[in-house]
């Protein structure tokens, strides 16, 4: 094969794979978007002929979804607050302390990232029952703190690694107490990592299904659990309307993340970064 032909084939394959991946990711989202405006009262063949906002109205008038949304917002907010405070402080401590078992403690702290969410949900359910907690709300909070904590810890640790120890030492040698040095020097420098971690935590909590399915009860359930029940019961198109709302919220959160931390920071720019 001539070099030119080989190069041409290689480029074609490269572009083809990228285009294929983009289509694969985008087509289902676009289909949902179109269906959410379907005017029919049932799920009919694609594409719909007439469009309306009926499914959006239906979602906003449904008290079942409304309760789920409120629970989700409440759980995500409280879990994010608890995880951000405890996780950021723990990250600062882990970054500075040296003691035996430090790496093991860090691995333990990060382990909910690796343990499947169904198992976290199941074990928190048994644990809560053992403690005599049978209400959905406190159980959901327990589970959601468990799954959001490692995200804040990890994001904060990653930022702290980029802060020179000499800043902290300079503050000390200028007469600051360790607490003052942490509060006035380290904490402001680590702010982007902590905020990025908090945004991650909120998204993770808000989207979580596996853990919530175990810990919800008929009074307290999250929005994804409500949607899941709805998808199982009858495939109506309110879920499509909610999907579009979810997509909008995701876009807003990405915008905030870019503002707060910069998207490049989130993935890192590497040593040859531009």
């Amino acid at each position, binding site marked *: 094969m001539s070099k030119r032909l080989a190069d041409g084939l290689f480029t074609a394959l490269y572009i083809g794979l990228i285009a294929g991946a983009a289509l694969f990711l985008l087509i289902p989202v676009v289909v949902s978007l179109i269906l959410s405006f379907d005017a029919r009262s049932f799920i009919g063949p694609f594409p719909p002929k007439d469009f309306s906002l009926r499914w959006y109205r239906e979602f906003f008038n449904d008290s079942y979804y409304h309760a789920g949304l409120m629970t989700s917002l409440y759980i995500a907010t409280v879990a994010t607050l608890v995880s951000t405070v405890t996780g950021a402080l*723990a990250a600062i401590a882990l970054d500075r*302390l040296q003691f035996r078992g430090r790496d093991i403690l860090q691995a333990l702290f990060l382990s909910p990232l690796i343990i499947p969410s169904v*198992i976290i949900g*199941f074990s928190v359910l048994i*644990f809560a029952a053992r403690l005599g907690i049978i209400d959905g709300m406190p159980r959901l909070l327990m589970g959601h703190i468990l799954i959001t904590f490692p995200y804040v810890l990890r994001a904060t640790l990653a930022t702290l690694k980029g802060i020179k120890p000499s800043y902290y030492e300079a503050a000390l040698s200028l007469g600051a107490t360790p607490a003052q040095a942490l509060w006035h020097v380290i904490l402001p420098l680590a702010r982007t990592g902590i905020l990025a971690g908090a945004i991650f935590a909120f998204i993770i909590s808000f*989207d979580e*299904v596996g853990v919530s399915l175990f810990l919800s009860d008929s009074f307290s359930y999250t929005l994804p659990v409500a949607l899941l029940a709805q998808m199982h019961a009858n495939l109506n198109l309110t879920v499509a309307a909610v999907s579009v709302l979810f997509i909008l919220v995701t876009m807003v959160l990405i915008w905030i993340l870019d503002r707060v931390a910069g998207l490049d920071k989130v993935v890192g720019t590497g040593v040859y970064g531009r």
Partner: protein
Amino acid sequence: MIRSETLSPSAGSQPSSSAPADLPHNRTNGFLLLPALVAFLPLLAGSLAVLLRESVKPHIPGRVGGADEGFTLKNYTELFDPAYIHYFTDTFRIGLVITLAALVLGYPIAHYIVRVASPRRRKALLAGLIGMLFLSLIVRVYAIAMTYGPLGPLVNAPLLIGIQPRTPLHTELLVIFGLLHTVLPLVAITLIGALQNINPRLEEAALSLGAPRWKAFTAITLALSVPGILSAAIIGYAFCISNFVVPMILGKGFVLFISNLIYARFSEVNNFPSGAAIAVIMTLISLALFYGLMKLVQLASRAEAR
């Protein structure tokens, strides 16, 4: 959902070497650890401890939760029954297919973003990828079901690779699509992190010395990114095999993962001890897989550095 770059080998595991080691500092720093030790650690340790205890309790049919007295390993030994094995093999096999597909489709995207795209396009693509990663799992499962389902516009698309609608293979393909929709952006973002640390001058040098493009790419960039590919694969695979919602909705009872088996033990037959035993096995597999393979990646990157 997001297990991206900072979970890669040895992230954050080196304590800053020059931190002052005298007591007052350690005491202040020690206090900072306290909230996590009080709020988080008991939750984790307590949950896992009761799970372990539950898994060795005898099961009494009709009772929620195992008997409080007695000790048995039956919950574990019964898992070797051939009826259970296929949950495990299905999970691991389908996870592997998805991970490979995500690598093949994700690598060019990552490469394009790191090496080719202009800063503006880079940012737009990054936002798109992160958005795709953050998209709710429920939303994508629903979107895949509506797109490839019986009334969807692409119901016949799998015919292109010889898969008929309304067959078990078609169902399996939908599960693969559902998971790939998350794993693809996850793998691509992880690969971006890896590709950024490979010197672009090396490939340029090979090209200017007359190497064909495919050869310069495979012999240099692809070869140097093997550790990154491996860690992306581990992160993607871990996501696949622990997933629960996608097989539950798109698998329609034909494709069930280990997580679904745990849930069925809990919700359908109320056999908590058996569910706990499967959960313990699954946790051990996940941890072993993750840390074992991460060790492998570290060895691979060390071999490369030499």
